[in-house]
């Protein structure tokens, strides 16, 4: 495998990871901590919205993020022909 192809793959990988980590940061540290007071002005069923993100919503998003990563990377591995077997 050539150096350029390796680097192209690695670059795409970094981009994907950064985008997913941005979402990770926003739902937990953003919605759950830094913006919690403002979001608490909104109601989501019986929850204040900020409180819901801190104790429920962020965890759901974490799970989705990992499975999204799995899907995206499996596709990327094939595109760049670095997949296993």
């Amino acid at each position: 495998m050539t150096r350029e192809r390796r680097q192209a793959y690695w670059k795409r990988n970094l981009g994907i990871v950064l985008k997913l980590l941005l979402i990770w940061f926003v739902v937990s540290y953003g919605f759950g901590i830094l913006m919690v007071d403002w979001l608490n002005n909104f109601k989501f069923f019986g929850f204040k919205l900020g409180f819901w993100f801190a104790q429920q919503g962020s965890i759901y998003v974490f799970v989705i993020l990992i499975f999204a990563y799995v899907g995206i990377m499996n596709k990327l591995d094939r595109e760049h022909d670095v997949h296993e077997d």
Partner: protein
Amino acid sequence: MSVLAWTYLLVGASFALYIGIAIWSRAAHTRDFYVAGGGVSPVANGMATAADWMSAASFISMAGLISFMGYDGAVYLMGWTGGYVLLALLLAPYLRKFGKFTIPDFIGDRYYSNTARLVAIVCAIFVSFTYVAGQMRGVGIVFSRFLEVDINLGVVIGMAIVFFYAVLGGMKGITYTQVAQYCVLIFAYLVPAVFIAILLTGHVIPQFGFGGSLEGGGYLLDKLDGLNTELGFAPYTDGTKSMIDVFCITAALMVGTAGLPHVIVRFFTVPKVRDARKSAGWALLFIALLYTTAPAVAAFARFNMINTINGADGAGALYSEAPSWIKNWEKTGLIKWEDKNGDGRMFYAKGDANEMTIDRDIMVLANPEIAKLPAWVIALVAAGGLAAALSTAAGLLLVISSSIAHDLLKKMMMPNITEKQELLYARLAAGVAVVIAGLLGIYPPAFVAQVVAFAFGLAAASFFPAILLGIFDKRANMQGAISGMVVGITFTAAYIIYFKFVNKTAGADEWFLGISPEGIGFIGMLLNFAVTYAVSHLTAPPPEHIQHLVEEIRVPRGAGAASQH
């Protein structure tokens, strides 16, 4: 059948199951012993990781903590789940491709240095022992309350069980027992939660009941905010910690989770890089099942508790008419009533009017009794608590045993031993570790609770930056990694020791930027990153073959089974 009979039946049956699995999955090689032969399916590995990760603290203590902390409890919920995103995206696939057995293996090879390896070994052993002491204590408490045996005898029984399957089966035995333990513990956690959600809010799913309304009208959380304010506490959905502290504790717990050796090592047990990614997803899904239920349990339990103690009218319930769970748990000392105003009524509030001392652990353990659930549900909680404590203890003991037999003896002190001898040493080390862990459970050092902050702080400030830069920065070298780890650990340890042992009375005003010792691992981690990066770029780059190794672990293809060579 009585509660006691049910408890003996369920705990006995679950123990028989674990022992059966251990015999069936006996380890024959070091590969079996350290990484279960590298052939575990991602879903099974996800369940095992979840059981490994969710300790006595998650099962018994967390909901209780949240119950008393309200919003602030989010630090545990986000901190102990968000770390899996970091693991899945930044560490697991690459460590799997690297394909060795342990964290010190990676640190030692990547930084071509036995000094770095030794630092990693010491951290891994320290973190694991800290953690395991708490598990054994949890086992003792469950035995003494539910099976009415002496706490020490309880610890000895727990030790015997773990000894049996960890020493015999190694990682292979542990993995498959953990799968069973996950099923036991999640069932035991969800059943009472569902019952209580139905009783209080009419919702079957606790996560919905959490945001649901009470029978008499009004949302549960609004009602709790009201009750809390009335009794002098901060509103339930607000909390009392400063924002920067909540931020730092959450971050330290997340990064600490991603750096805990007994969690990372689980990703060496799957066959492929692809499986390592997927298995992190399954692990978090299985963990999230408990972690999204816990805050609901916390809110239900607080509401039930205040209502039982203060009475529906809020004037205090008569002690003579108190339900049996209050008297049952008074015997264990986890709940105390002191009739200050001599009116024969119990009252719970903040400040002088308060007459109750309530241990937070009671919120999960006594929850089924508080909600008047049937005897078998109460027994189930005992079996679940034991499953949580034993599965985590076993995972940690394996880390200790592999650190000693593989990293210390084979890699550093006597490289010429045969595989058979190494396996023998690994079993011996596991055996000795079980005994030490048991002793720590029987004679708990007064500082067990305080040192938990250590485990996460140190994992965050030592392993995480070293592993991350080892993968993502080809330029990171031996000098950088060693100085970074030393600075990170020294700073974090010094801060925690100072505020936990020397200047214990210091409050938020004296903390650095208002960051508590629980959250300081985050700052230690940032320091480690900065030092490693700076020193690496000021000294010579790592040798050619190391740079090649880094390029190699960045692509999935070619991941063989985890091996010694």
